């Protein structure tokens, strides 16, 4: 009898006795059944220790690897000096720069016109120019500006060495002030050559986020569903009163959770070890991420409908999603420099938009005003893909 009752409750709308008690009971039962299914999905995930380790180890390994590369000290950078002033102050500063372990004055140029050619010849990382009357200006006005040009084609290196130079100049400023008793300030005016916006510097954290989330969601989802097809259990599920849409929800639940955990791990690591905290709204970032996660889950779903074997699903997600994510997102190669065809194509890659969202919110601290367009695009992709996959999932199996 009990079984009959719960059976009726399961369908929710049957029998026409839609009293409140019945409805509540139905909702309760529904939650219970979905719970049973989700529990099973979690068991699948936790039984597979190797995959689990990979899922959580991957983001940590990536952050540590990239972080280590970032924090590496750069010594003996070759620089060039152009000194139009040739006074006591510039001599002292040049000597100070040259004697630091970070810089190696490769050559002294007669004119700033030669800087460009010197950069193009290769191994030069930075050029420092003192304008004419530098020392005089400093003594009379207490202020002087030196020009620093760095080769920013490797943005990490450019940032690091300009920071070194800033420190040396700051040091020199206080020496001067202590010696003369009046404040004297040399302002280095920094200029980045070849890559003025320093693209690439903290770019890898948003990149890793997009990559890891894409990997977990797309691959894990498609493999989890295709596995049921291979095992033959999918048939059983479809013959059961359990609705296809609940199968999908249950399948997505563990991957959603794993992805969110991964997201927090990455944010924590990058904030603690890389000094890249979330500058903007944390909630906004999480919202954008969940949108991206849902998009990736839908792609995984779509892949699983077409793939017949787990291997096919895996290859499909690796080749079909990982590569475009790596290449067309803009974190390894700037999209602006790509051929038009690829630029157009990159618009279809969800991670491209997510990448922008993360950069704007996390690194620049911008609000929703700066990313509403990206959010809208991502939301549209998510809705479209989810609807298509839901439809196809039903058609395919019923």
């Amino acid at each position, binding site marked *: 009898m*009990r*079984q009959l009752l*719960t*059976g009726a*409750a*399961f*369908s929710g709308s*049957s029998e026409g006795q839609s009293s409140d008690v019945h409805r509540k009971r139905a909702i309760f*039962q529904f939650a*219970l*059944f979905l719970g*049973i*299914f989700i529990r*099973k999905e979690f*068991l*699948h995930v936790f*039984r*597979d220790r190797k995959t689990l380790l990979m899922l959580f180890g991957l983001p940590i390994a990536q952050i540590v690897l990239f972080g280590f590369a970032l924090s590496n000290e750069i010594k003996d950078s070759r620089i060039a000096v152009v000194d139009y002033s040739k006074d006591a102050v510039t001599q002292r500063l040049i000597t100070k720069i040259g004697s630091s372990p970070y810089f190696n004055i490769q050559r002294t140029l007669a004119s700033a016109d030669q800087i460009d050619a010197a950069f193009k010849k290769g191994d030069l990382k930075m050029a420092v120019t003192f304008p004419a009357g530098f020392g005089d200006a400093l003594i009379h006005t207490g202020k002087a500006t030196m020009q620093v040009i760095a080769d920013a084609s490797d943005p990490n290196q450019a940032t690091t060495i300009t920071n070194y130079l800033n420190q040396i100049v700051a040091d020199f400023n206080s020496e001067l002030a202590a010696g003369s008793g009046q404040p004297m300030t040399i302002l280095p005016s920094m200029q980045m050559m070849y890559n003025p916006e320093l693209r690439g510097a903290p770019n890898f954290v948003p990149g890793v986020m997009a990559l890891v989330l894409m990997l977990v969601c797309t691959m894990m989802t498609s493999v989890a569903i295709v596995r049921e097809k291979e*095992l*033959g*259990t999918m*048939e*059983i*599920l*479809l*013959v*059961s*009163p*359990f609705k296809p849409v609940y199968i999908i929800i249950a399948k997505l639940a563990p991957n959603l959770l794993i992805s969110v955990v991964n997201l927090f791990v990455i944010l924590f690591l990058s904030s603690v070890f890389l000094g890249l905290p979330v500058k903007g709204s944390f909630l906004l970032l999480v919202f954008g991420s969940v949108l991206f996660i849902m998009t990736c889950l839908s792609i995984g779903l779509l892949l699983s409908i077409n793939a017949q074997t787990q291997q096919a699903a895996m290859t499909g997600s690796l080749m079909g999603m990982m590569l475009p994510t790596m290449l067309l997102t803009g974190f390894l190669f700037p999209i602006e420099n790509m051929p038009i065809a690829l630029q157009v194509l990159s618009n279809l890659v969800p991670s491209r938009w997510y990448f922008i969202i993360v950069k704007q919110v996390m690194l620049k601290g911008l609000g929703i005003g700066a990313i509403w367009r990206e959010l809208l695009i991502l939301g549209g992709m998510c809705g479209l893909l989810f609807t298509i996959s839901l439809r196809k999932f039903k058609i395919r*199996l*019923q």
Partner: protein
Amino acid sequence: MEPVIQTDKLTKRFGQFIACNSLSFAVDKGEIFGFLGANGAGKTTAMRMLCGLLGPSSGKATVAGFDVYTQTEKIKKSIGYMSQKFSLYDDLSVAENIRFYGGIYGMSRPAIRTKTTELLEELGLQKEAKTLVRELPLGWKQKLAFSVSIVHDPQIVFLDEPTGGVDPVTRRQFWDLIYSAADNGVTIFVTTHYMDEAEYCNRVSIMVDGVIAALDSPANLKQQYGAATMEDVFYELARNAKRTSE
């Protein structure tokens, strides 16, 4: 007695192709009904329509008293299903599999608990309750899969080639389980390629090219076709088939 499955000119077309052509038959409660046919004869399509997975093109059919066009959800609750591929989760334990399948059929927790104990006892698997299914021998998996498919006490259970690739001894034991389920009033609707199994059925239907070519008890069929075994009956009917694979 009211039949549990009744079809009347049940037909399924895929474009020009007629997978099932005007099937009419009835299956009684507690009957073991063999559903035979060469590959491509239309067995799977017919079974899918009866399970509520596939909408028929025309004709009528009721399963457990419910209409296959409009009441598929109710049909799904009244039937069990087991396919050739065991349909158990390898990486879940025996008890977890039982709990999961009980759960998706809407059984309450206490009911699942009672049923699990009962079932493990019946199969002699008490000690293996926490063993992962992948560690069980094939024959045990098969029996467990069958027991799981009727864990929610369905009126009818559909078995799609349940004994594919299993040794004769295990098959015999498997059929013991089927008999005991039938004795408890469960109707068994089974497809098979093993003709010795066809002999175990109360009645057998043989499909050829989308139509039911013969339907009777094995004894009557053998008599009718003047054959010594069901194998001969089947061969006699199926050799003229035009379709060969699904």
